[in-house]
Structures are given as C-alpha cells and as structure tokens.
C-alpha cells in the first residue's frame, strides 16, 4: 500500500475532522452518525444550515473542500418530513472524508435558509430542490427555474412521492418560451449560443452579452434534455436495472456513473467487492478517461479550426474505442460494472490487446502533444483565455481538470480512493494558470497518467472472482458513491428502499458543479473564444432522441412513420 494512501485512510484523521465540527457546533447538532468508513452524517436544524455548511466549506485550514452534492428527499411517507442533506467532501492533502449535513423540513412550511450566499456552489442544488420538491431556499440570489421547462405548471413537484412517475401535468404548449433571462447590460448585444449550435456538444444555451466581440456578461440555461432518470430509478427499476440506466446518463463517462452508483449501493449494503473486480473496474474507468480526454483535446483543436490536431486525436481515440469494444462488447456504455463486481473478465487475449494498444497510444500521444504544442497558432489561441482563478474555482466547487487547471489540488481517485486506486501509484497534474491551455495540459498529462495506471493495474491484477453474491440490501440506509469521472468527481447518493427498489437516488455529474463557474471564466474574453472555453470545461452530452412531433394544440406527442418523415424532409428541402 502506498504511503499517502495509508495516511488518508487513517480513521483517526477522519475522526479529528468530524470532532472539530462537532465541537464547534455542539449545541446545534442533534445527531452524528457514521454510515460508511468515510461518510458521516450530522443532523442539524434548518436555521443553522448556512452557518455550518459555510464553516466547513470555507474552513481556513481545510483548503480543498467542496460541496459534493446536495440532496432533497421526500421522506414524508416515512417521517412526515422532507429531508435535505449537503454532502461536503474534504480533499487534497487534508484527508478522505465526506460529511453530510442533514436537516429535516416540515411539510407545512417547506422553506430553508439558502446556503448560496455563503457558498455560490450551492446555487444549482437549491434551485433544483425548489423546482423538483418545492422546498424554497430563502435569500437565494437567483430564484429562477433551473430544471423544469417553462410550460411546467407551478405547484407540481415531480420528485415528491405523491407525483406518480407516469403523470404528465397539463402543459401549455402554445406559448413560446419566456424564460426570464437577465436584461442585457446597457449598450450590449446578445450573442445566443445554443441550444442548436455547431460547436456545442450538448443542448445548452449561453447568452453572451457582448460589446462588439467582448463578452461583458453571461447568462445560461440548461436542462433542455432533462430525462427524469431519478424518478424512474425510484419507481420502476430494481437495483440491478438502475445500474444500466445509470451508465446511460452520459454517453462518454458511463462507467463512472455506473461505478458511482454501484459503489453507493455497495456501501449501503456493505457488499465486499472481489479485488480482481476492483482492478477491472479501475482499468475500465481509465480506458474511459483516455477516450474522453482524447475526445476533448480533439474538440478543443476543432473549435479553433486546427483540424490536424482534431483528426489525430480522434484517430488515437479510435484505438481506445476499438479496445473498449473488444473488452466489453461496445465502444461506449461498456456495461461492465454491476453491483458487487463486474460482468466480464479480462481473459488472457484481452490483456495482451490492452497492452498492445496502450503501448502504441503512449508513443503516438506523446507525438501528438509535441506536434500540438509546437503549433503556434493553437497555443496562441489557448493561452491566457478563459481564465478561472483559484478563488472562483473554489467558490463554485468546481471539480476535475477544470478545477485542477486552476490550481485546485483534488482528485477523487487519490483523495477518496475507490476501486483499485488505493493500490496504485499515480500523480495528479495541477496547473495554476487557470486558462484553456492549462486545462488542456492537465488532460494531456492525465492521459499519460492513465496509461501508467493501466500498466500498473495489469501488472498487479490478482486472480479470483469477479462478482460478489449479494442477497438483500437493508432498507433506508443512506450512502454516497463517488468516482473520478474524466470531467471530475461524480457523486451518487442513495437511500435504499423496500422491495428491491431505491427510495431516493441522486445523481450528480461532474458538469453540474463545473457549469455555474463558466460565466466567470468567459467574462472579458471574446466571442471567438467562447466556444473554446466551453469546450475546455468539457460539458457532458445528452443523447438525442428520435424525431417526435408535438402538436402544439393538443399537446400530444406523436412519432413519425417512414412515409411522413420522408414527406417532411422532401418538403423542407424543396422549400414548398
């Protein structure tokens, strides 16, 4: 076991953190509970939320803290109250610990004091709780809708237990969207970016308020493709099935989500995963990181018109994709991770395949980096652009390469070792410049580290089972599962339920934490760089759907048949 890993798994260290919090807020704390080796839950009154959460996050000595996730749950059937829990992780050299600050909110007075003024990173979480559960954050600086569409009626909260998952409230399709965007500052024009924009991978909307080409202010909007996965997971699916839906949250970092979910359930159900399975999980996670980072570096090149770099990066990525296909049967959405282990073993021929591909990748990627960094025009475009300061990075609780490019020293693989990372040795690349180039370099170095991790893992992989047997998971246990996805820490929080079903499942993808920081990175840059800055944050995809026609009058959704589709396309192209 590596030296640092030993240090941070030390229980004493963990208890010291918790006891400091407990000492300080003695009178306000109602309950302290340890629910997994590195997860504590502290229950307080809702009035004290900003103070306690703010204290831990802005603690002067624990530098690399962040708001990992915040979950509102409708616990009325059980306790007659709503619950909310703020999960704060303490990273870096400081230690390996998740502290959940839990509070209950009565049904008749669904309000709580907002944490956002103390820590802006809570902005989205609190708006989401308001949208989906009807818990109102008081004193929130930006009380606009976040998740729900414009035509969703007021007072209908989809995540409450009395809202059935097949329900569809009557919606008014006739009106065009009237989202209350910020008024443009005086003398500025609006530069709308998305949701349909060539360079955006995801249907997000940025509203750049520009003076000529200079970005003065930014407003944004997301959740065009909100799919209500959490609700499905809580109602329709069994634990095992959820795992596969979790994998499909993201087209790029599916394994990270599946793994985070599986680990959450494993933590709640105290399932021991065989060591070989942990190694295989690690290798899969790193393969995923390889292809994701190569994709992002390629796209960064593409966004500035450097197609040689783009094509070369994608060609390298193609090898990784091919490898993934041979290992798991698919290029993405590997379907490897299940609760208790993995589904496919690394047979001998697969091992040699990995070794070969990794060796080639190592050589070629080094060449790619040299070539790209020697392209002056590319470096010129990336240098000094989209600077996110360390302070802003911390303020918004950013994660992953986006945070590490701004000098934040955090990486869930090292700080909260999961899977086989505790047995392996690797570096966490950190750049302090905070610009696009720094983020690209972080990714480039992480690719090399990933290669090194895979090499180690293949060397050290033990024999044995790959799947642990598990029977039943005790109901109403809470746990968080976390992984370091390519874009940063992914956190899944579960409350287990009865009948092989989840009671509450909360997904927090890494982009969720990174996104609100983008306006800070974009202000003061030019329109030309906007797309590059967005790409350098590496936002997550949503998968597209088939063509559906929504009849604006009746609100019915109809899927087109072949004939109609052909007819429609013909009409569109002939301009009739």
């Amino acid at each position: 076991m590596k030296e640092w890993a030993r240090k941070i798994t030390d229980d004493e260290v963990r208890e010291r953190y918790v006891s400091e919090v407990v000492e300080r807020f003695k009178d306000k704390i109602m309950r302290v509970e340890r629910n997994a080796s590195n997860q504590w839950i502290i229950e307080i009154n809702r009035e004290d939320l900003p103070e306690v959460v703010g204290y831990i996050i802005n603690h002067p000595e624990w530098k690399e803290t962040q708001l990992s996730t915040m979950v509102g749950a409708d616990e009325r059937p059980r306790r007659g109250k709503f619950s909310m829990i703020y999960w704060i992780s303490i990273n870096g050299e400081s230690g390996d610990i998740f502290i959940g600050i839990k509070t209950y909110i009565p049904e008749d007075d669904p309000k709580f004091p907002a944490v956002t003024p103390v820590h802006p990173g809570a902005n989205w979480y609190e708006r989401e709780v308001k949208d989906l559960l009807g818990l109102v954050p008081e004193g929130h600086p930006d009380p606009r809708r976040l998740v729900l569409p414009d035509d969703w009626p007021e007072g209908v909260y989809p995540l409450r237990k009395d809202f059935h998952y097949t329900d569809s409230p009557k919606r008014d399709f006739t009106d065009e969207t009237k989202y209350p965007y910020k008024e443009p500052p005086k003398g500025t024009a609006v530069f709308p970016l998305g949701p349909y924009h060539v360079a955006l991978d995801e249907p997000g909307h940025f509203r750049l308020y520009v003076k000529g080409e200079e970005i003065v202010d930014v407003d944004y909007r997301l959740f065009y493709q909100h799919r209500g996965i959490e609700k499905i997971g809580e109602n329709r699916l069994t634990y095992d099935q959820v795992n596969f839906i979790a994998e499909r949250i993201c087209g790029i970092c599916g394994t990270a989500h599946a793994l985070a979910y599986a680990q959450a359930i494993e933590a709640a159900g105290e399932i021991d995963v065989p060591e070989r399975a942990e190694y295989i999980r690690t290798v899969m996670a790193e393969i995923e990181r390889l292809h994701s980072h190569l994709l992002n570096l390629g796209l960064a090149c593409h966004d500035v018109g450097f197609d040689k770099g783009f094509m070369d990066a994608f060609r390298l990525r193609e090898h990784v994709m091919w490898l993934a296909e041979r290992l798991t049967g698919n290029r993405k959405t590997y379907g490897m991770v299940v609760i208790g282990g993995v589904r496919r073993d690394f047979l001998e021929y697969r091992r040699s395949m990995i070794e070969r591909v990794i060796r080639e990748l190592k050589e070629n990627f080094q060449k790619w980096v040299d070539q790209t960094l020697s392209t002056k025009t590319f470096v010129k475009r990336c240098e000094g652009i989209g600077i996110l300061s360390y302070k802003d990075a911390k303020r918004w609780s950013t994660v992953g390469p986006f945070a590490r490019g701004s000098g934040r020293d955090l990486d869930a693989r090292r700080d909260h070792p999961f899977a086989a990372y505790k047995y392996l040795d690797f570096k966490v690349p950190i750049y302090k410049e905070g610009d696009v180039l720094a983020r690209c370099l972080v990714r480039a170095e992480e690719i090399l580290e990933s290669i090194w991790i895979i090499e180690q893992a293949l060397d050290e992989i033990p024999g044995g089972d790959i799947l642990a047997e598990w029977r039943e998971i005790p109901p109403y246990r809470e746990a968080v599962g976390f992984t370091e996805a390519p874009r940063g820490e992914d956190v899944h929080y579960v409350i287990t339920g009865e009948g092989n079903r989840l009671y509450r499942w909360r997904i927090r993808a890494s982009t969720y934490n990174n996104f609100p920081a983008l306006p800070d990175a974009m202000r003061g840059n030019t329109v030309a760089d906007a797309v590059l800055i967005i790409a350098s944050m590496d936002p997550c995809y949503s998968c597209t759907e088939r063509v559906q026609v929504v009849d604006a009058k009746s609100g019915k959704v109809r899927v087109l048949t072949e004939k109609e589709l052909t007819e429609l396309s013909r009409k569109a192209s002939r301009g009739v």
Partner: protein
Amino acid sequence: MEGYERITFSFIAVCLILFLPPLLDGIARKIKAKVQLRQGASIFQTYYDIMTFLSMEPVYPTERLSFRLAPYIAFASAVSAALVLPYGKVIPVSFTGDIFVFLYVLAMVSIAYMIGGFSLNNTYTNTGANREMMIMLSIEPVLGVAIGTFALNAHTLRMGAIPFAVTFTVSVLLAYALLAYSVYVEGGFIPFDVAEAEQEILEGTFCEYSGYLLGIFKWALMIKRFALLWLLSSFISIPPIRNVANGTLGGALILITQLIVLFLLYAGIAVIESMNARLRIDHIIRKNAGVFLCSLAVLALAALGW
C-alpha cells in the same frame, strides 16, 4: 489567326474561372485529408456539394433586397475580376488592365458578404461581416505596398504588363512575398478564415443563407480565391519564361505554367491550412499591422531603386 487564338484562350479562361475553383477546393480537401492521415472525400466532392446547394430552394430570413441580391453580386464580381486576368497572353474581357480595378471589383465580393450579413438583425452574420471588413482593412496597406513596389519597378499598374516588365531586385522579391501574404489573408485561408469561422460564429453571413443562394455565394468565394491565386501565379510564372514565350505556343506555355503554379500554390496553402489553428481577429490585425510596418522598408528599398 489572332481572333481564333483570342477566342480559344478566352473560352478556356471562362471554363477555368467557372469550373476549376471547385476542383481546386476538392484537391485542397484531399491534400488536407492526406496531411491529417485521412482518406478524404473524392476531389470532386466540392462539385457535388455545390450542385446539391444549387438544386435546393433557399429559406429566406428576410425579404430585404440587399440580402437577396448579395450572392448574385458576389458571384458576378468574382467572375468579372477573374476575367481581367491574363490567361496565356489573352485577357478574356478587358474592361480594365489596371490592378486597382481588379482589386476593387474583387472587393465587391467582400462587400456583398458584408451587406448581406449586415442587412439582418443577427449578431452572427453581423460579426462575420464585421470581421471580414476588419481583415480587409488590415491587409489593404500591405497589398498597397506590394503594388507600389511593383509600380516603382515596372512603371505600370497593368496586370498583364507588370510580369513582363518587372526587373528582379531585392525589393521586388520582397514584394512577391508581401503579395503572397496578402493573397493568403484576403483569400480567407486558415488561420485567417475568421470571417467564415464555422465553430465560432456559424460561418458568419453564411449562417442565414441556404439552398442555391448559399451555393452561389460559396462558389463566388471559391472564384475569388481562384482569382487572387491566379494573379499571384501569373506574377510568378510569367517572368522566368517571358523571353521564350512567343506567339500562340508561347501563350499556351504561359497558360500551362500558370496552371502548374496555381496547383502548387493551392497544394502549399492546403498544407499550411491543415497545420494551423484559426487566429483571433485581434491577432490577425496585429500581425497584419506588423507586416505592414516591415513592408515600409520594402517600399523604401524600392524607392532607392534596389
């Protein structure tokens, strides 16, 4: 005899002007693909693209005449500009022999692009048009110095006459470099393609064009590039063979040399294009201004007769 020669060459010229540019684009795409280690589409792909565009009915964002006529004006100006260049020893339609008229007529392509872009309330098209203008603004003095040097050396501004009259001095060689640079920038090749940047501003003005309007506009832009490069290629290819090229055969020789140089230039440009990222507009202005300040030295050399 004279008449037949003129008609033949003019016919070849018109064919070249109209139908060579897409092929050149296709070849450039193929070369880029090869540089990027791709297979790449067929060299005729650009023809297919243009034909597809031309067969489709456009969707109009406005009924404003300035928007609707812009592609036609661009196309007509690009072709007109290309028609006054020498093909062999023949100029197909000589409404002028003057390089300034050529440049101004060519600039009308950009003006059409700008007017088209600015006739809408759309920040994308506006920004594209705005950038086009700034590039033109910043490259114009460099072009001016190049022409000035040629004028000082050859004592004429007639395109057909400069390559025949120019004497090779240091300043003229540098003027060639300046001309090549300005042709590259004016042609809007990467890293100077900011006005039609796809990822940043959705191809600028083209964002709102569709169907055959877009087809005509793209075609016009290709012809504009062709005209610029043909000018450069004439300037490069005529001087070395001007003494041996006599009569009709000489004209044919010049035409073939021009074509070969054009292909070489295009190939070179394709390689440079694929190896570079797009610059930002402020980078470009700074770069062009720097080139201009350096180019003043060239003008000084030319004034001294070197």
